[in-house]
């Protein structure tokens, strides 16, 4: 039901609860933004005081010292290629799992799902040995190949979304003589636009922020990604807070931009009968 029609107390309660939750959720990030402008020592000794001046020094230092230009180039390239690949590959697979009836379908679906249940930590070492055996050690291609294999969640979610598309639309199209692929592209895809945007956003985040696989595969600084770059500010025994918060501040912008671009798509609705944004 439309929010406007909620009972007044329910409305107030909803706002209160939402605002409280929002404050809790945003607190760490607000703290981060505040700390960016503070001196390194002040960040730890007086963490909740307001910054005395609006100095961008931390950000500038972090960018230079951390060679963020290279890190961004690598991270963005890897993320874009991988996410694009995932959407294509898993989109096709999800369609098959949700709409086609082929022998062994359920078994294959469980196989595709099973990867989600294995902690990445135990495949780290075997995967490293495999990549080395293929001669791809310390390359960005190795990372892309790994990310392209992250099928489970995408297949799961896209399939769920496709299953919510009413059969009647599909049947009408089939009666009209359309082939499977055509149905996929012209009927299912537009209606699942929001799901694709969701999966795209989520995977962008996961891949961009992934620390484990770059740690394992990459050794040369030229192939490093942003998360590896962040970790260099945790020295052996001291943490360089000023650089670190500056670096975190730098690192969050690409994902925020991606979210900004895709959020409209995520909340778009496409029901049979027309587009509703």
């Amino acid at each position, binding site marked *: 039901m439309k929010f406007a029609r909620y009972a007044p107390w329910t409305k107030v309660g909803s706002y209160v609860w939402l605002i409280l939750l929002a404050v809790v959720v945003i607190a760490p990030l607000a703290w981060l933004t505040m700390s960016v402008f503070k001196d390194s020592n002040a960040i730890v000794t007086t963490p909740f005081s307001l910054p005395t001046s609006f100095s961008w020094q931390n950000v500038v230092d972090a960018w230079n010292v951390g060679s963020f230009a290279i890190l961004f180039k690598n991270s963005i390239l890897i993320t874009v290629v991988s996410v694009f690949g995932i959407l294509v590959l898993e989109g096709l697979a999800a369609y098959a799992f949700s709409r086609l009836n082929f022998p062994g379908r359920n078994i294959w679906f469980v196989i595709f799902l099973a990867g989600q249940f294995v902690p990445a930590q135990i495949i780290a070492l075997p995967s490293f040995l495999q990549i080395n055996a293929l001669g*791809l050690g310390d390359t960005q291609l190795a990372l892309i190949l790994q990310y392209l294999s992250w099928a489970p969640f995408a297949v799961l979610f896209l399939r769920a979304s496709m299953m919510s598309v009413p059969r009647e639309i599909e049947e009408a199209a089939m009666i009209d003589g359309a082939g499977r692929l055509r149905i996929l592209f012209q009927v299912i895809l537009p209606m699942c636009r929001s799901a694709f945007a969701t999966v795209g956003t989520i995977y962008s985040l996961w891949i961009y922020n992934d620390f484990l696989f770059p740690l394992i595969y990459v050794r040369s600084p030229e192939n490093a990604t942003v998360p590896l770059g962040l970790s260099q500010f945790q*020295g052996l025994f001291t943490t360089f807070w000023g650089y670190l918060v500056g670096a975190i501040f730098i690192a969050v912008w690409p994902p925020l931009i991606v979210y900004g671009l895709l959020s409209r798509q995520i909340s778009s609705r496409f029901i049979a009968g027309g587009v509703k944004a």
Partner: protein
Amino acid sequence: MNDNNPLNTSLTRRGVFRLGGGIALSAGMTALLAACTPGSASGGGAGSGTLTFMNRWSDPTSKKNAQALFDAFTKSSGIKVANQTQPSSGDTYQPAVRNAFSSSNPPSMATDISGPEIYNLAKAGVLMDLTSIANGKLKGRLQAGATAGAELDGKVWGLSDGANVGNCVWVNHDYLAKYKVSDSDVKDLESWIAAMTEIKKAGGTPVVIGAKDQWPGGHYLNDLVQRRLGSTNATALYNRSVVKGAPDTVKWTDDQVVKAFEDYLLFKPVFQDGFLGEASATTDSLFLSGQAGFYEMGSWFLSGIRQNKPSFDIGVLLFPEVTGGKGTGKEVTLGNDTIIVSAKADKDHVEQFFEYFTEPATLAKWAGDQFIAPPYNYDTSKVKIADSTLKGLFADVNKFSADAGPDGAALFNDQAIDVNIYTKYIWQGSVGLMSGDVAPDQLAQQLEDATVAAQEKLS
């Protein structure tokens, strides 16, 4: 889209395939392009005149210092060095070194902690035997400790790039003066605790610890066990979990060791409130901003002091003597950073690097930059440290090493003991002692059992 016929475009099936194929192709090409961009794969020793050097000098200051060293070496020898800094958290760095050395293109050289990490790598056959280098070009340059924790079966598998003194106690003289406490009050453990108790009663913070991170508590156990057993026996005890056939004359369940664990409990009332939940990074800053009197931390703390100069009068002491213990108050704990070499590296290049590194001028600069003591012969008066406070403190630390004598040093427990044992029983155990989850004699028994099991596995 038209309600009646959703398929009112003229996109044919073939068209779709073409489109899909095109997309896949372009994605593939982009991926290949990414792989081919310069910077992918620099092999160990690939191409004449390059050494790849994996290390954990990743924070801004250390990275600069290491790069300076490599550049100077390149200038002198013509051999290039690829500086491969890695994230330096212990939990991720040591596994990264193991991985790197078991891959098909290992780095030429790498830094690593001494002890079982190196023994394991040596046993696996992935390291270069450095005995001939140590006895050859470097003969006469090595001091005691240069190969500590890197010798196995009479062979040398690594050379130190510097040692830290681990059992230091940093002092805020101004803070203590407020409570009428001075260095002379730290004669031994008993008097030290007594002085700190007085401070706590007066409402002050005598000492801080970042116990949440577990290893700070491990340090205290290290210091106390060494004071109770003496360096030789402590080393004998630690070796039982990593050296095949090590004698078991010293046991974890010995009286002195259990007493050491009980000594640690004496600190509970004097640590800051909530110490079990505090991170060591926070306590570093708490101390450096003048909010505590004492701080137990190794000599690497000098880099932290350089980063955040304290505004108070800062001094350093060695961990005090424990009355009734077999060790003296002069014995030091060493944390040794060792350089290991891959079996696949170019021996000649490596030899040149070590030769260059152990030259007195190089050593003097390296020591001053990194606040570390490389165990080789050089003129310590040539070490340049700009800041007078840091210079004084570094001199104090070096004096500790010098005064300790030949038998007065032991490796850190978290370098000397098998990693599974020290993380589970020493690190976590130190927390458990404080939280009351494990009693000193229980912990001792657990350690003894685990050590016996480890020794059995070795045989």
